[in-house]
């Protein structure tokens, strides 16, 4: 059920190789389900450079607020303005229209340290 075209972090973010040198970053279905209705996203400015696991921003639902962590190091080259303006899209479509930022990675091999879809699913089972 988790898309196999991307990798996953233990903090429930995903990173997807766009095959154009950039990676899209978002949160998983598990994350959006647990957050509930998302009403506010705080994301960095385009041009910001960050390290892996550095705080990317915050996602705020009616219930709670959580930090977003960047799963791979790099420069933020695009922010999904649709998600900023209509955060509910992250609940509705976390893997496609609800992506958060586009990253130009500085160490693309960090992807190898992230989980595959199958590993992430086993990881989720271990949480319950």
């Amino acid at each position, binding site marked *: 059920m988790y898309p196999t075209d991307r990798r996953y972090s233990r903090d429930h973010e995903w990173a997807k190789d766009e095959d154009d040198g950039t990676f899209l970053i978002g949160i998983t279905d598990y994350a959006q389900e647990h957050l509930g*209705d998302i009403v*506010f996203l705080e994301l960095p400015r385009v041009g910001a450079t960050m390290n892996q696991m550095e705080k990317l921003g915050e996602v705020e639902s*009616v*219930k709670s607020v959580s930090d977003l962590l960047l799963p791979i190091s790099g420069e933020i080259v695009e922010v999904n303005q649709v998600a900023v303006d209509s955060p*509910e899209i992250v609940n509705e479509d976390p893997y496609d229209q609800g992506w958060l930022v586009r990253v130009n990675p500085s160490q693309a091999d960090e992807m190898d340290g992230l989980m595959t879809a199958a590993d992430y699913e086993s990881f989720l089972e271990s949480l319950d």
Partner: protein
Amino acid sequence: MKRTPLFQSHVSMGAQMLPFAGWEMPIQYSGILAEARAVRFAAGIFDVSHMGRVEITGSDAAQFIHRLVTGDVLKMLTGRARYTIICNEAGGIIDDTIVYRLDGERFLMVPNASNADEVLDWLNHWKDTWASRIELNVITEETALIALQGPLAEEILQPICSVDMSDVRPFRCVQGQVSGVKAIICRTGYTGENGFEIVLPAEGASSIWQSFMDGGAIPCGLGARDVLRLEAGLLLHGSDMDSSVTPLEAGLERYVNWDQGDFIGLPALYESKSNGLSRALVGFRLVERGVPRHGYPIVNGHGPIGNVTSGTYSPTLDMGIGLGYVSLEFSTLGTRISIDIRGRLVEAEVTAIPFYSRKR
């Protein structure tokens, strides 16, 4: 962890369950925003069986309650309900509650879940102290409490209710039958919408819950309830008030019976009123985007001036709203303040409570 008579209904419907005041309660079903919307535009049902239910009966019952709450109980007619406040000797708020007069010598008091034990101890203490001829009967476990709220609430209730509810105005209660089950039906609520709170035997709860769903009511959790009550400017004990604040500071003076009052805490409230207040509860709305939450500092250009006691994103108004105590000089409507949202200062404005009122 205690469970309400509707626990199985919640679990079988896939509700997210969380502990609340010692009870395992549904926080949400389909989603907080969808549930809140259902209550504003159609109808929702809430299991609020975790709230306390104490029957107070006996020849001294009216006088006894009158001396323990800020409102006038002696004047209450049978079939009336009243929102009122229980204060300690210092005028601090032990709890807010609704008192229902079911008969001349029979009342029902509904304290908050988290205060139910403390309120019962307080009632017992004064019963003994005053040697009151009353009986206290806790009926929390043998009954359920369901809130049916929203513009379609009456249409859903009436076909299965033995009483003509069009005669039952707000803050009135009747005894009748719902789906053939004996019930106390009250036109009260905690959402800002028209609706009912219904006390019924525990064993009848699941079938009536199902009847309301069959009638089109959407099951709602405590998450939506909190959003709705805050939009309606209704305070939550434990967040917006506690025994360290008085009804005057909490903006609840209209519930204080200054004239005929003879209740615990009245002398302290008189003194507090003559000394003047130093802080007040205000409502505020965020001018920028963000979500205020309990505990966040309220600041102005010179530093902290108070704390947020409740905050949420308001789906009805599409903005962040909240309540908090500030020094009196900042309590005027229109005052510009800021909320410190985890280090980010977000501009806000002191606004009138309630934030939302239904069109009548």
